[in-house]
């Protein structure tokens, strides 16, 4: 019985992870809609499985662990805040070994298109190397850069740019069923 419940939760999480992969809104900050739909149908345990209160959920990773780190202008060096977030990500990934992740690097619009793709890749790689240094297997982590193609904030001032210069760890289903 316990076994069955666990499996159904795992399947649910896997489904969420896949949803995170294909969800067109995943470039947005912490996805409440995803967390909201997660509990339906599972209904076991003290928390709604898949919701942000489920420590094994994608929503928890996004909201409680923190799925992104931010970078200064034209830089790919991690800030102290960024390292703290990645410490949390590493700990979570070590505990949830059935997940893989794609780290998406992004740039703000102040730069030429191709340079920004290269810069985004540098940022994604900085985050990846840090996670690997904390013990996460490199085989679980891929990187991609979107350059300036997918801003989450659309204003043309530093307040928006600061949020766009980011590396986002997007979980993917890594269940070997």
């Amino acid at each position, binding site marked *: 019985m316990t076994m069955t419940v666990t499996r159904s939760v795992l399947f649910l999480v896997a489904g969420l992870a896949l949803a995170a992969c294909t969800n*067109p809104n995943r*470039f*947005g900050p912490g996805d409440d809609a995803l967390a909201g739909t997660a509990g339906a149908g599972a209904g076991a345990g003290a928390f709604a499985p898949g919701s942000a209160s489920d420590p094994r959920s994608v929503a928890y990773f996004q909201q409680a662990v923190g799925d992104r780190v931010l970078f200064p202008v*034209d830089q*790919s060096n991690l800030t102290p805040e960024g390292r703290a977030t990645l410490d949390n990500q590493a700990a979570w990934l070590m505990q949830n070994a059935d997940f893989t992740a794609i780290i998406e690097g992004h740039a703000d*619009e*102040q*730069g*030429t*298109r*191709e*340079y920004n*793709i*290269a*810069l985004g*890749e*540098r940022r*994604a*790689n*900085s985050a990846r*190397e840090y996670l690997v240094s904390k013990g996460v297997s490199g085989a679980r982590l*891929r990187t*991609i*850069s*979107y350059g300036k*193609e*997918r*801003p*989450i*904030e*659309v*204003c*043309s001032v530093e307040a928006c740019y600061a949020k766009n210069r980011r590396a986002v760890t997007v979980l993917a289903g890594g269940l070997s069923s």
Partner: protein
Amino acid sequence: MIQRALTLCLAMAMAATGAGFASAQSQGPLRIEITEGVIEPLPFAVPQFEAETAGSAEMAAQISRVVAADLSGTGLFRELPATAFISTVGSFGAPVQYADWKAINAQALITGAVNVQGNTLNVKFRLYDVFAGSELGSGLQFSGTVDGWRRMAHKVSDAVYSRITGEGGYFDSRVVFVSETGPKDARQKRLAIMDYDGAGVQYLTDSRSIVLAPRFSPSGDRVLYTSYESGFPRIYLLDVGSVQRRALDSQDGTMSFAPRFAPNGQTVVYSISQGGNTDIFAMDVNSQQAVRLTSAPSIETAPSYSPDGTQIVFESDRSGSQQLYVMPASGGEARRISFGEGRYGTPVWSPRGDLIAFTKQNNGRFHIGVMRTDGSEERLLTASFLDEGPTWAPNGRVIMFTRETQGAGGQSALYSVDISGRNLRPVPTPDGASDPSWSPLQK
């Protein structure tokens, strides 16, 4: 006489903007100036072309209008309105009443005739130097299909432009670009192709995945571009005629982008990013053998060949900021050519070989500029919140680029400007547009 007058105008304009082509190469401090030199455009008249066959009157009118628009669009010519005409032009080739055209100060007169037989279209034209009282060059005739009428109008314009300026034309050419719709944070992009003047837009891909920076092959029959359709950025080669495409080989776990053809149409130079480092590679499109051209820990991207294929200009941040470098086409030692204030990117070698166009970022503004291939005589042609990605007209005299407006409602559009910084104008597109690549003159 027309040619002399116009050549004089051009020479004056270029002297005024520092765009002269004297061989003197300045060393020492960079001199940068953005000048809106004004020249007096040459007045011309294009009476409606004669319709030689029944039912060809509308086509004759349309062709005349396209010729007039091509010439006026250069900023070098000014069309005189038909309401000012004293003389009417009789049948094609009938004697021209020069005094009547002189009286309204038409320096050039273009007459033409249009003949439609079934699906075959013939267009003839003559160019007259009104003040010299003689024909400039001899009459020419172009034949094609009725639905290719715009191309024949552009061919007339190219011939007129070449005879008067002594330069190659650029009107019978196309532009491949990225068509953009949707809000800034969920922009939909697809490849599109159109005539240089924005006519005849056709879409080459759908907008399911991000597509970037298409680049024409030297013969204009194929296009290289970057697409995220596999989930990761990869380079695709698209045949313009059949719209068939294939991905070029790439290694798993890498990203490839920024492709551009070599003048031989066989080799592609591009960037690969892997492990936080971006370098430049060259690949033969048939064998798909890739050769590494740079190996620095910095970002090396946006490569572009010289027209003779011996050198590559590219951007690198190896000095700590984005700058332009030139290296041999086989790789090896690169020399830096940009030394002004700010950052330099997206260099593109002129088809004439004399200049390199680039994007410059300085003090929160973006510029399109040109410099000689040794980096001297830098001149900025435009300034805005975001200008980037220059592409050269086939004659190396005009540049098209992307301009994006700022803020939440920011939109991209195409603009063109001539290399003296004059005649900045938007290129009409149905939706937002970015990343233009100008084809060679069509055959």
